């Protein structure tokens, strides 16, 4: 590296956000290298994967050519399958609702790809996530929400450690949605306007249930549906096909709407009930990552998001001896879902996050996300 400008690898996808990320960083004076991962897709469905089809790769390549930056594709298929997809399937096998984006950010983007970026000689890696990092000397790096809270993606980045954040850049976090749209026009990049989607990239246009049926056939295991009072109401086809708070698709007619209240994997039983039965005032999160690398020494009052798009709720947070975290909410929350992340915020700052454990304490705890190994 003879050039003194810092080098940054941008994780590209052919979409607007990562393309503008690359353009912005170049404008800010970085040496930019584009990289794109080839992720795992079910055989025969490659053209439907949401973020790494041959077409989106060709698009990313054109963006890179227009910006005059090098572009490399890297094969992450095996490691993606071994980490993200198996995390996803194992979670469903345990009757939780896992969030594979957490595993992807921890192990694919910010471990596998970051290691490759560092090996290329990069100082930083950037993604098109809407979030911010704040660096101050001698202090831990802080992870903050995006300026535009409607686009904020700090929730899925709550798994990041100081070692990862040290190399992380999220330039879009400083812009509003409208500003980014203006930038897209200004840079005149040949990017695809991709629909915002909550779908997981590897589902490749199919729904979760059919994906599970193909890839984890053992989830199809009929069992009883009981009311909260223990009354037998019907039969379900497998606990994995239901999520806490779910209302549609229960197959039971009743004068009042019924919701999934709980799943009891040891008895293969689905508990349903009225809206009032839903919700809890507390949760336990395991596999907890404190962004500063330091668990707080005392209980603290903070806001918590229990899903990517949920509203933050006030809670009292206490760390247990085993590192798990207990959260007691001021008001009961409806959608506490084992397998999803509970992310703790102090205002704009992400303090940390962990995976919500099943409510019944004797149940198996979720599959751990696992350690990150960087070799910078």
């Amino acid at each position, binding site marked *: *590296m003879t050039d003194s400008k810092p080098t940054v690898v941008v994780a590209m996808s052919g979409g607007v956000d990562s393309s503008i990320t690359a353009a912005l960083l170049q404008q800010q004076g970085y040496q930019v290298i584009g990289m794109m991962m*080839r992720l795992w897709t079910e055989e025969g469905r490659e053209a439907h994967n949401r973020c790494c089809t041959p077409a989106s790769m060709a698009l990313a390549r054109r963006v890179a050519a227009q910006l005059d930056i090098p572009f490399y594709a890297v094969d992450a298929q095996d490691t993606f399958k071994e980490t993200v997809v198996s995390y996803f399937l194992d979670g469903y096998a345990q009757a939780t609702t896992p969030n594979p984006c957490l595993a992807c950010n921890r192990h694919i983007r910010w471990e596998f790809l970051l290691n490759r970026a560092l090996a290329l*000689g990069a100082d930083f890696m950037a993604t098109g996530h809407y979030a911010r990092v704040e660096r101050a000397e001698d202090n831990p790096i802080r992870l903050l929400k995006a300026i535009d809270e409607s686009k904020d993606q700090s929730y899925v980045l709550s798994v990041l450690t100081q070692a990862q954040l040290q190399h992380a850049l999220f330039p879009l976090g400083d812009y509003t949605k409208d500003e980014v749209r203006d930038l897209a026009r200004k840079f005149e990049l040949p990017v695809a306007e991709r629909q915002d989607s909550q779908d997981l990239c590897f589902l490749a246009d199919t729904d979760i249930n059919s994906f599970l049926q193909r890839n984890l056939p053992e989830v199809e295991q009929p069992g009883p549906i009981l009311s909260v009072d223990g009354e037998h109401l019907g039969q379900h086809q497998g606990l994995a096909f239901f999520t806490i708070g779910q209302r549609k698709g229960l197959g039971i007619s009743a004068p009042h709407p019924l919701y999934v209240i709980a799943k009891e994997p040891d008895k293969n039983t689905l508990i349903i009930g009225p809206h009032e039965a839903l919700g809890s005032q507390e949760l336990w999160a395991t596999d907890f990552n404190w962004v500063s690398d330091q668990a707080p020494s005392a209980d603290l009052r903070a806001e918590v998001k229990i899903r990517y798009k949920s509203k933050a709720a006030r809670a009292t947070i206490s760390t247990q001896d085993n590192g798990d975290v207990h959260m007691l909410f001021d008001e009961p929350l409806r959608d506490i879902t084992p397998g999803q992340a509970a992310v703790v915020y102090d205002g704009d700052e992400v303090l940390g996050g962990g995976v919500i454990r099943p409510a019944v304490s004797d149940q198996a705890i979720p599959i751990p996300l696992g350690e990150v190994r960087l070799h910078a």
Partner: protein
Amino acid sequence: MNGKKVYLDHAATTPLDPRVFAAMSPYFEEHYGNPSSVHTFGQKAEAAVESARETVAMILNCKPKEILFTSCGSESDNLALRGAALAQRETNNRKWVLVAPVEHHAVTHTAEQLAELHDFQLEWLPTDKFGRVTDKALQQAICDDTAIVSVMYANNEIGSINDLAALAELCRQKNIPFHSDAVQGAAYLSTNVQTLNVDLMALGAHKFYGPKGVGALYVREGMKLHPSQTGGGQEFGLRAGTHNVPYIVGFAEALRITQEEAEQHNTHMQALRDRIIDQVLETIPDSKLTGHRTERLPNHTSFVFKGVDGNALLMMLDVEGFACSSGSACKTGDPEPSDVLTSMGYDREWALGSLRITVGRHTTDEDVESFLNTLPVLMERSRTLEAV
């Protein structure tokens, strides 16, 4: 990122020689006629094409009417294989196609298509540990029913040179058409079709400092081919389509210069080649040369390294300013070990770590020096990455 870029991928393509470009230039705007036209515009263009054909024929030691111009080396391979196989079946009812698995995909995929779509029988010729077809292997494989044999002159991935004359002689005795993909070989080796004894031979200009998008096929007089492209009857009815006049002119000029200056350039490149081979094998642990040590193209080096992601290594080299290639290189991030290395018996652990460095006329001692200084460092980094 390194400021100076060093291009070490001359087996992929070469820069256009400015002298070739100068020879081509008048045929874009000035002499733009269609060689098939009656008027003087057409005559001028036709003269250029026929003069190019003569030049090429002279270099290949054959008659002008034995030279066909095509769009590239791959097209020449396609026409030779498919054209000869179909004609042989029609006249002699022969049905066996013999090719080695180390051939370029232009040959192997065409052979596979002949088997799948046209009911030919495909037999893969075994190769020795250097990726060469031996006369013994060919002797055992050919029979009266063989429609076509195709053996490349020099291998693009591993550089090994086949003894075409000996192999072609075996086919000649049985009256079997013998084709050679000489796309790599023609850039450095003799292209005398009489001593090489071939019936068909494919060439592509951009491997020898000519333009991309033009190739040629030598077709021995009397060899029957089915046309690859039907239409206006150009190229003796075997390859229809308006002649690409400036590129055909460029093809001939590039080949002429290459043959004329071969000795000088080959001596220069071979010294660089030998230096790279010796030093890489000496300084890099768990490294092997692929292909033959001496019976190889004078500009060509190729290696495998155990436990290295060849793709990652290529990226690192590129970031440091060195443009190289690899048998498993894939721009879409879906690496598979190369068919060539796999067929030669290298297991995945070695075959995924392949690297090809091919020098050119303008490669300097300093280029090679700085490459050889950089490679061990990157290799170490790449191996650490794999260990994670």
